[in-house]
């Protein structure tokens, strides 16, 4: 469903992403690991349209993404979360999710002002849908609180469910478990499985190896912007290059 | 929840605003003026009978002037002149026996403020007469309101535009700039000027003056080489000055605010223009100081001139005025607005004197009967009924950084001296 062929991104002299190719299969949970500064988040920004690759191409469900803007890529069905939480702090929790629904809603400017029947119905349906998504992560009780007032773990979950609201085919999760305690990590594990059941493919950056090895079907390893290895979690655990890169022997 | 909040706030806002208006209405903030005008009396609820002229009541005189902004200097001088006149009139019994209470406002030179002030003067202060604002745009905005309320206004603006709205209750105590332009055109033909460049501000009175100058000049067969303008508040006119000189006119006509006069004078001389310059109004005394010798050979036609010291003045009533002005304010009038304001109050007083009543209509009829009233600007004659009291004035030339009557200057051969240079 996502094919990345030989993609390169240069910042002036620095090659942040160096000829990386990978492919994601429908409905799988994929991991993206590598030491700090390996170019993981840059790779995410590359796919989601924040940067345009200097070389190579990114194909998503047969559509070439090079040069498309973030919101266009989002509308084709790819959502994402951010390493540093990017919630709309002063808006309420449920409103954050409703913003996620934005591409799915139809009501325009004038129907909003005239408050036509269809617009009212669509708004109510959107609000219901948002509440459903809040149940999905157990945040319904805090629906009307400002997003900024949630705990760190809850904000992470809200960001994930905000991404899911537009029923994407693929969701990119940038270190969802960062800053979570073990109980929250267990909950995250359950939620990730629920997301997979919805048929949504996941590509996840994460440093917590226990969580990654338990949940992912397939893992890619990046180091210094190059793809070091790929394979099932077991293969990756015993792959000498990966171990060397992590333990820094070479 | 949102709807309740909206409703509550709307109510709160409207009530706040209405309470505010009513509090303003009960004269809490009565316009008190600097200087020793009569003590501020809190407004009684009853509305004074406008028509009766019981001696007990006061004659409320409104004066909205642009006390802040670019024209603050002229406005302050005008206010001083008005206050001086008010004291004099009160000392000699007031208007039709009623002491004048001056109510002064700052209209910041904005027509919107002028409209609000006009309404406040009519409703809250219940003015019996108004001295018009210095800026014609404010006069234009206020004119209809005061006219429909039957309140006599003595305007002091120079531009002809606001006198064309046939407002019955508005008369002018200053000199309409169209007449000044006729006089200047006569001077130009007298001095055999063949070509003229025009440098004008965008404000209404400058625009009106430069347009009138263009028509008068063409009528007198003088070719207008170019018309340059400047933006209000601008200080650099070198581009315009260079262009004017490039068309090498015999003379340059300048229509501008007071603080622009010295700058353009210096820049014209700096760029090598030695010819005569004509100014739409009096070349102010302190502008003369800033301009220095660059102001020499500037000619203007104006009813009054400002003085460095009292001895220079040889017109009896003017000398008396500037002496009293110096006593009260410790300085000579810095802008001729003082004379305009003074004359305006005097015209109003004379009008009430002729008709013997303080009622708006009566004052107006009284003013239209004035035929030989000796004001600072000269002899006022309103009998023509078009609201213009002054029609002629003499011309002056600046020579040796002093005001000199044009006729004397010509007799002494001052012009030949320049022509030969």
């Amino acid at each position: 469903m996502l094919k990345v062929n030989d993609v390169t991104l240069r910042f002036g002299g620095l090659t942040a992403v160096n000829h990386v190719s990978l492919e994601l299969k429908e409905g799988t949970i994929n991991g993206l690991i590598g030491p700090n500064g390996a170019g993981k988040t840059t790779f995410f920004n590359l796919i989601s349209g924040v940067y345009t690759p200097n070389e190579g191409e990114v194909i998503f469900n047969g559509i070439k993404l090079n040069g498309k803007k973030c919101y266009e890529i989002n509308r084709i069905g790819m959502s994402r979360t951010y390493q540093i939480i990017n919630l709309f702090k002063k808006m309420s929790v449920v409103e954050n999710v409703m913003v996620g629904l934005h591409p799915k809603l139809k009501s325009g400017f004038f129907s909003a002002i005239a408050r036509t029947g269809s617009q009212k119905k669509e708004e109510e349906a959107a609000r219901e849908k948002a509440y459903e998504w809040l149940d999905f992560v157990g945040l319904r009780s805090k629906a009307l609180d400002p997003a900024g007032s949630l705990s760190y773990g809850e904000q992470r979950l809200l960001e994930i469910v905000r991404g899911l609201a537009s029923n994407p085919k693929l969701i990119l999760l940038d270190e969802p478990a960062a800053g979570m305690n073990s109980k929250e990590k267990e909950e995250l594990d359950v939620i990730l499985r629920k997301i997979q059941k919805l048929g949504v493919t996941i590509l996840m950056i994460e440093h917590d190896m226990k969580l990654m090895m338990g949940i992912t079907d397939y893992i890619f390893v990046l180091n210094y912007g190059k793809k070091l290895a790929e394979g099932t979690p077991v293969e990756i655990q015993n792959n000498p290059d990966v171990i060397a890169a992590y333990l820094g022997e070479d | 929840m949102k709807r309740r909040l909206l409703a509550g706030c709307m109510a709160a806002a409207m009530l706040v605003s209405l309470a505010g208006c009513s509090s303003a209405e009960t004269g809490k903030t009565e316009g008190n003026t600097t200087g020793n005008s009569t003590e501020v009396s809190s407004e009684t609820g009853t509305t004074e009978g406008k028509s009766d002229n019981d001696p007990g009541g006061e004659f409320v005189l409104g004066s909205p002037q642009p006390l802040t902004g670019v024209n603050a200097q002229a406005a302050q001088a005008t206010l001083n002149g008005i206050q001086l006149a008010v004291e004099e009139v009160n000392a000699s019994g007031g208007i039709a026996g009623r002491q004048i209470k001056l109510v002064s406002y700052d209209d910041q030179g904005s027509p919107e403020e002028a409209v609000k002030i006009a309404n406040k003067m009519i409703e809250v202060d219940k003015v019996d007469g108004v001295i018009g604002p210095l800026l014609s745009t404010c006069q234009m905005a206020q004119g209809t309101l005061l006219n429909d309320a039957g309140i006599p206004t003595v305007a002091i603006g120079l531009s002809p535009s606001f006198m064309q709205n046939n407002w019955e209750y508005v008369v002018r105590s200053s000199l309409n700039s169209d007449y000044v332009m006729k006089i200047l055109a006569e001077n130009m033909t007298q001095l055999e000027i063949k070509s003229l460049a025009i440098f004008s501000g965008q404000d209404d009175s400058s625009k009106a003056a430069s347009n009138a100058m263009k028509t008068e000049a063409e009528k007198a067969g003088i070719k207008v080489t170019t018309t340059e303008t400047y933006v209000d508040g601008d200080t650099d006119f070198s581009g315009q000055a260079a262009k004017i000189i490039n068309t090498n006119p015999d003379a340059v006509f300048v229509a501008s605010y007071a603080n622009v006069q010295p700058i353009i004078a210096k820049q014209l001389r700096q760029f090598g223009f030695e010819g005569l310059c004509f100014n739409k109004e009096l070349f102010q005394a302190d502008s003369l100081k800033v301009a220095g010798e660059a102001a020499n050979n500037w000619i203007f036609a104006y009813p009054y001139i400002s003085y460095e010291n009292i001895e220079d003045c040889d017109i009896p009533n003017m000398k008396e005025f500037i002496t009293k002005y110096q006593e009260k304010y410790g300085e000579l009038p810095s802008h001729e607005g003082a004379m305009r304001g003074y004359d305006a109050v005097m015209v109003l007083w004379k009008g009430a004197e002729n008709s013997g009543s303080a009622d708006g209509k009566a004052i107006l009829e009284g003013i239209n009967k004035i035929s030989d009233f000796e004001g600072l600007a000269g002899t006022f004659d309103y009998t023509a009924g078009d609201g213009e009291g002054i029609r002629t004035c003499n011309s002056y030339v600046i020579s040796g950084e002093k005001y000199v009557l044009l006729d004397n200057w010509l007799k002494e051969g001052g012009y030949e001296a320049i022509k030969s240079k």
Partner: protein
Amino acid sequence: MNKMKNLMNGKMVPKLLLAVILLLVPLLFQNFNYGLLICGFIAVYVIAISGLDLVFGYCGQISMGHAAFFAIGAYGSAIMHKYLHIPALLTMIIASVAAALIGALLAYPASKLVFHFLSLATVAFGEIVYQLAAQSPGGITGNFTGFYTESINLFGFQINTNTRFYYFALVCVVIFLSAKHRLVHSREGRAFLAIRENAHAADGMGINVRKYKVMAFATSAFYTAIAGGMYVHFVKFISPETVSNKQSVMFLTMLLFGGTSSLAGPVLGAASVLLLNEGLRFAERYQMLIYGVLLLAAILLMPGGIYGVIQKGQQKLRRVK
């Protein structure tokens, strides 16, 4: 179903009470034209400021040249009315649509500018429109001599007295505020808020940031232009001084005094600043100095504006309860 319950338990009462008060105002102030005039001005400014609130309070895009749209609304309506003899109400709408288009035209290239430079672009735009009004080609705007026009003629019913204009302005305020209320609580409103909060994330959530910035600018231009049209047909005279950059600063001051991103903020802001202006009349030439000092004090002490203070008060009340 909880909506119906609210209607029943007297939520209608404050709204009815407000409506009664507002309708009674002219009767209470029979001979008090000045008060009504100020209320008329307040209504005009409420609409202009609500427009500015849309683009600044909700969408986070600063505009320091909004007097330009006020000018387009006022001059457009007055000129069309005089030369094309179109009835005043229609010219107001046409001029406002034109202002909205010009607003969109300005917003499109300006949407990539970061805060300070967007404010510079709007200052420049405001100055250009002011210069055009001050020395228009062929003197169509009457330049500094000003431009006279007539009051609105609603199918034969001349709105020329302060009382009639008060009611007309009241109707306009209700229409425009409820439209803003609905817009803010819709998909577009959420998009505006998302852009204000975090444009980068909004982009990631499928919101075409540029399109919504342009929409916010155009809507606020429409509001401010309508206010300009109402002003010119109320005062029946317009000249360039009214649309100088001092006016743009006045709009921003009122919005910040009142409190941004709220329905009541602009109302409180417009009312308080205008009344303050009237209250300071006694100060004559020191009026602007006091105004500057008060403005500075308000910014330092009351960043949320009056509405912010009320909200803090409500929150404290709720916590106490």
